[in-house]
Every structure is written in C-alpha cells, then in structure tokens.
C-alpha cells in the first residue's frame, strides 16, 4: 500500500507538472506593454510554487512508503517535534511568500497606482445585458451627457446609452459596437455598467476590470500589437453572460484616425 501511494502520488505530480512545463494550455501571447512584466512574474511564481509543489508531493509519497508499518524500520521515533525546525520553515515560507508579494507589487503599482497619461486615447466602455458599447468623445474631447430615462436598448448605439442630444458635447460623440484603438498608445477606458456588474476582459492585453453600475472606473492599458482580440465578459451578469463578447481592434494610428473621422462624418 505504501508503494502504491508513492507511485500514484508521484505519477499525479509528474503528469500535472508536465503540462505546466510543456505549456500545452497556456496564456495567449501578450499584446500589451504590461504583458511582459506580468508574464515574467507568472514564470517566477510557477517556478517557485512549482518547486514547492513537486518537493512536497514527492516527500509525501516517499515518507508514506519509507515509514510503512511493514517496512524495514521497526522502531518508532518518539518525538513531539523540533522547535528549531519549526522556526526555520516559518521564516523560510514567510520570506518566500512576502518576497513574491513584494516582487509583484511594483508591477501592480505601475499598472494601477497612476492615472493614464495625458495623451491617452479615451474610450468609454459600457456594459449592459448583454452587449458592450464603446464611446469616443470626438474632437471636443468631451463626453456628452447620458440620461437613464433616455435609454432605449432596442435602438442600439447612442440610443442604448441614453445620449442626450440637447447637450452640445454629445454632438460629436461616436458610439461603436467594436472597440477600435491605435497601437502603441495608451488607452484610457472609462468603465460603466447600466444594470448589473459586468467585467471587461481581454486576455492578450492581460487586462481585466469590472464595470460596476453607479461607478465610472478609469483604467488604462497600452496595446503593442495590431490585430483583433476578443473581449469577453468576466463577471456573471445573467442568462446571456456566455455570449456577451465584443471585438477589440488594434490598428495603426493612421487607420484609427481615418476610422474615427469616417464615423464622425457618418454622424453629420
């Protein structure tokens, strides 16, 4: 029985670890400025915690086999423990865990403790059951007023957001069902939700943030690769949660300007 336990525990450990090392299923390639730092910390954490995992499981398997009752060692060591050892592993684990935390905190701080840069592209992202709408402030740089009583979900676009046509700032606002942003420029998203909590998640950007009704949450990320990326809702929002997705299109600054200008022109 000791041998069977050893074999099974070791086998489970090795198979589990293999798929992490081989990266058979893994994060998609990062496409934002923050991705490299985050991925690096993922790697560091996997190496550290992976070592602990493998060491602990191998030790467990070995010990149950080595000290089986029908094994070679016949005498039990009568001991209530060892305070020095306790102290050693308490300090070691404290250093390990707090150290990991401190290493990652600087990345967190650089992502989330500062506001977006002054030249960032502003996009208001609004989640509602079960769609995303993206609004650009237009040439005046100001978002027009939206009013809940003006909302008409079936109208889509501006109607769904409840944009107030009487507000001068709303005249040049562009509302889109696709999020288009220029590459290599910081994007400031202003996250809102109409009904329940939604969450804006783009795996390649290593970016996720809840959109909470009643709050306007300002966050930022910088795409460094062009292409189309899927936006998925990452907070349970109702029966259509699984299909509440959208597209993030990262294009060159030129293409972005043209796209925005074309949308402006459509409005006039």
């Amino acid at each position, binding site marked *: 029985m*000791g041998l069977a336990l050893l074999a*099974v525990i070791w086998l*489970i450990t090795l198979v589990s670890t293999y*798929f*992490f090392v081989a990266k058979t*299923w893994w*994060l*998609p390639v990062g496409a934002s400025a923050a991705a490299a730092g985050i991925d690096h*910390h*993922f790697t560091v954490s996997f190496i550290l*915690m992976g070592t602990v995992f493998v060491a*602990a*499981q191998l030790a*467990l398997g070995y*010990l149950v086999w080595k*000290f*089986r*009752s029908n094994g070679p*060692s016949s005498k*039990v*060591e*009568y*001991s*209530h*423990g*060892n*305070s020095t*050892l*306790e102290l050693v592993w*308490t300090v070691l*684990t404290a250093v390990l*865990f707090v150290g*990991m*935390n401190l290493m*990652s*905190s600087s990345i*967190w*701080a650089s*992502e*989330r403790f500062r506001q977006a840069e002054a030249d960032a592209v502003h996009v208001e992202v609004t989640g509602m*059951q079960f769609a995303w709408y993206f609004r650009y402030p237009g040439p005046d740089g100001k978002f027009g007023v939206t009013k*809940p009583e003006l909302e008409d979900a079936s109208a889509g676009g501006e109607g*769904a957001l409840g944009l107030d046509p009487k507000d001068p700032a709303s005249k040049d606002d562009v509302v889109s069902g696709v999020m288009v942003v220029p590459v290599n420029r910081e994007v400031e998203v202003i996250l809102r939700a*109409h009904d*329940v*909590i939604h*969450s804006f*998640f783009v*795996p390649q950007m290593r970016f*996720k943030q*809840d959109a909470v009704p*009643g*709050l306007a949450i300002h966050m930022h990320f910088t795409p460094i690769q062009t292409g189309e990326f*899927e936006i*998925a809702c990452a907070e*349970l929002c109702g*029966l259509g*949660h*699984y*299909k509440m997705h959208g597209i993030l299109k990262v294009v060159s600054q030129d293409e972005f300007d043209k796209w925005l200008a074309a949308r402006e022109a459509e409005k006039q």
Partner: protein
Amino acid sequence: MVGGTGGGETITMSTHESAVQAHAHAAPQGFIRKWVFSLDHKVIGLQYYFLALAAVFVGMFLSLLMRIHLIWPTAALPFFGEIKPETYLSLLTMHGTIMVFFVLTTAPQGGFGNYFLPIQIGAPDMAFPVLNMLSFWTTFLGFLVLLAAFVVTGGPPLHGWTGYAPLSALQSAGPGEGLGADLWITSIAIFCIGALMGALNFITTTLDMRAKGMTMMRMPLTVWAWFITAILGLLAFGVLLSAGILLLMDRNLGTSFFVPLVTVNGQLTGHKGGSPLLWQHLFWFFGHPEVYIAILPAMGLCSQLLSVFSRKPIFGYKAMVYAMLSIGFLGFMVWGHHMFMSGMSPYTAFAFSIMTMGIGVPSAIKTFNWLGTLWGGRIRFHSPMLFAIGFVSLFVTGGISGPFLAQPVLDIYLHETYFVIAHFHLIMGVASIFGIFAATYYWFPKMFGKMMNETLAKLHFWFTFIGAYAIFMPMHYYGMSAGLRRYSQSTEVAYILKLLPLQRFITAAAFVTIAGQFIFLFNLFWSMAKGKKATDNPWEATTLEWITATPPPHDNFGGQTPVVHNGPYEYSVPGAPKDFVMQSDPEIEPAH
C-alpha cells in the same frame, strides 16, 4: 461501567463534575424524543451528518448535469429537460450553495463536531442541548426552503452562490430572480441563525465542559479545530445574516443598500444611491472565513489521524494550535482578495494581498508538521489514514495555487477563470470532503458499533483520489488559457471553444469519480447492517471517545466522568506497556 481497551481511570462526582452533570439529562424514551427531536448531541450529530449526506448527493447530481451540459449543450437531461443558459446558471448557484452551506459547513462541524467534541473533552453533552436541537432543525428548515426554489415559477436564482448585487437584487435581472431568489436568501438567512446557535454552543462547551485534567493544551487538535471554527462562525455568519436581510429589503421593500441608479433593458428600476461593492465587502467578510470554517475541522482531524496511524506523537502540537489560531485570525483580514478586479481601491489590494500571502505561512507550517509526523513512524494504511494522506496531498495542491490568485497583478488575468474553480474546489471542496470521508471511516465504528468494509473503503479511496485530480487539475490549464467560469456554453468565444477537449476530459473524469461515490454509499449502509462488530478501540487511539462503550451510552461515559492525565497523542512512548497511552491513563513521565 466504562469499558475500553485503554482501561481509563474514572472517578465519581466531584465539585466540577457536578456542574457538568447538571447539564446532563435523562435518556429519552420513545422514537420522537430519541431520534427526531433529540437533545442528545450524538443523535443531533448524526442528523447533521445525514442531512449533509443527502445534500452532497443533490449537489453532486447538479454538478453532473452541469458537466453534461457543458459538453452536450443540447442534450435533454432528467428533471430539467433541455438545459437553457439560465437553467445552467441556476444549477451552478444551487450546486455552490448546497455544497458550501449544507455539506462543507454542516458535516464537519455540525455532524462530527457535535458527536465527538463533547466526548473528546469528557463531557456528558453540549452545554445547551435544547439550543443544539434547535440549531439542527433550523438548518434543516433552511435546506427545505432552498430546495423549494426548484419548484417555484422561474426556478432557482441564476446569480451564483456569491449572489452579487445588483443581479441578485433586481427581480427583472433574469429568470430565477423572482421568488426563487427570495427563497435562496431566506434559506441562507435561516442557515446563518442555525450556525450562530451552533457556534455559541461549541464555544461554551469547549470552555466550560472539559473534564478534570483536560487543559486547553491537552485538547485533541480536532477539538481545537472545532473550537476555532465555531469562533469564526460566530463572527462571520452574523455579518452574512445582516447582509441577507438588507438584500431581502432591497428586493421587496424598495430600499437601495446595494443598488445604485440602474436600468434593466432601458427601464428604470426605482433604486438609487446604493453600492454594489458593499454587498461584496459584506459577503466576503463572511465568505473568506467560511473557507476556513470548511477546512479547519479537516485539518484538525487529519492531524489527528496522521498521528494515530503513524503511531507517533503529532509533530509540533503547539505549532499546530498556533497555526490554526493564526489562520483563523488572518482569515478575517483577507476578504478583499476576492475583489481585486471589483473597482475597489488598488491601494487596498496591496494590503489584502500581503495579508493573504501571510496566511500561506501557517498553512505551510501545518504541512511541514504533517510530513514531520509521518517521518520516523510506522504507518498503518487503514482507510481513514489513506484519506488523511490524500488530504495532505490535495491541501498542498489546492494551496499552491493560492499565491497566484493572492497577487493582484496575476489575478488581473486569472480572476473569474477556471483557475479559481480549480483552486477552491481542491482546497475548500475536495480536501474538506476528504476530511469528511476520513472522519466517517475513522468514527463509524464508534458511532454504529460496526466496522466498515475495508476493501470497499480502499477502492473508494483510489477512485476518489485519482478522480479528484483528474477533474480539477485540467481546470488549472483551462484557466491558464483564459477559460472563463460560469459560461453555460463555450461556443461564443473562439479561444474558449478551443478548450472544449479539456471540458470533455473533465466530464468523463467526473462521471467515473461520481460513480465511485456509490461504493461509499453502499459501504456505509451495508456496514451499518452487516458490518463486523467493532471493539471499543479498534484503531488503538488515545482520545476519550475510545475509552467509552461502542456506541457510547446516552451520557457518554455511563454515569462517570473521565479524568485526563496525558496529552492527546502519546504513541510509542518509551517504556510504556503498549504503543499508545490513553489520555485517561496514569500520567506518563514528561518526555521530549
């Protein structure tokens, strides 16, 4: 007459014991008083246990339906027909709620804690037997109210076991958010009341009812675990109860605690000014300690079993006690790690993160001490021990993913993915369930006077141990590939659709593992009827439940009160006649 292999020393009444005896009550006559509205902590313990057993099979059945739906979205299923997206969400809500409250909180604490805490401290019953009966029947009522959600119009709620507002607060937010959601909240509120009564009883009993010589530092680690769990319950369930009442008011009385000005489908709801984050704060202030409420009893028990079946004293008894105390204490300061992506201030995330990583330290101490207990022992591989060893393995595996989620910068990516599902199912779900299985195999002889079938038990262990890994290990990979939880179908997002083969494997593994649980169910009932007769101390263990008759008499020790002279884990003491010294045996020479 106090029987038992240990031949424990007993005395008749002294001053302290008379205080204790005042709590005792005459053995009841008649079926109703004896088995239904019983005041006997042992009967109440069994009632909790069988409630949890019924609940776990319901919860497991729901998970099976979910697993089938995930890989065959259009297949019609028993009881539910074709599963619509909202039905899937109802299933996951009910699965989570049933498992967390009515299994993981009910069996380890209400079941085994009730049965064995008084016996292990040498008491004739709980401090408040009537309160104890009330707490069980309150819990039972809570379960019925929860099940009622299945049969009302709209069905059970779809807001998940965490019930985030405003989804859970608005009747118009989806099917199931009508009467079903009200029943769900009411059920949880009722459960909280039962849990609070239970917690008071456990704390008072532990502090007040210990036999002579049973100092705090001679208490078995199981007792320490139940005691600390009760303190957590006392502090946590009150908060959830209040939050639940506020949510009910938001839903039915027009208040706006958790709901700001929102529109559903363009229609104003009449609410304004509330905070969705307030619900999350209150919920997780309960929700995180709840994780420890589920796992601490298993930690205590498995510590005990590793010592019993290694025939060795526990490695670092005091360190184990302090580790459990620090886990309980820190457990109240980390709730924000569930909310890194919620819109909470990023500065607080830093504080919550470092506290959470801090919890890793006592958890690691426990793991080291478990390995230290095995080291140099002579391990007997009886079924309780197999599950205890399995527990250690699963605790390590489930624990190791914690530091990923505890670091906000990694949680940006991992939050709401299957990585989270893998993490909490392993550590809070499967590891705790291994504790419940270990406890069942270990204490069954004492509770029913029969031995369980060892061959079936071992078969059950292999099915469950390998099965649990086969189900939950792939969920880490699924989450690493950004596979999101609470998605009823994977067809809509291209990168999630690619992960379907993993889902198929997990469903297959779930089928096999669940099938294996019927071995357990059969063994349990078959052994009650046909099992080999158990002796009073079949495992040659030292704690007080093994000095009394099997099953124990109504007042636990047959009119006498044990006196304790030794610590709980005196195995292989040099010079002792046997390889174990009962807690009630004459005091051994202090040795180290």
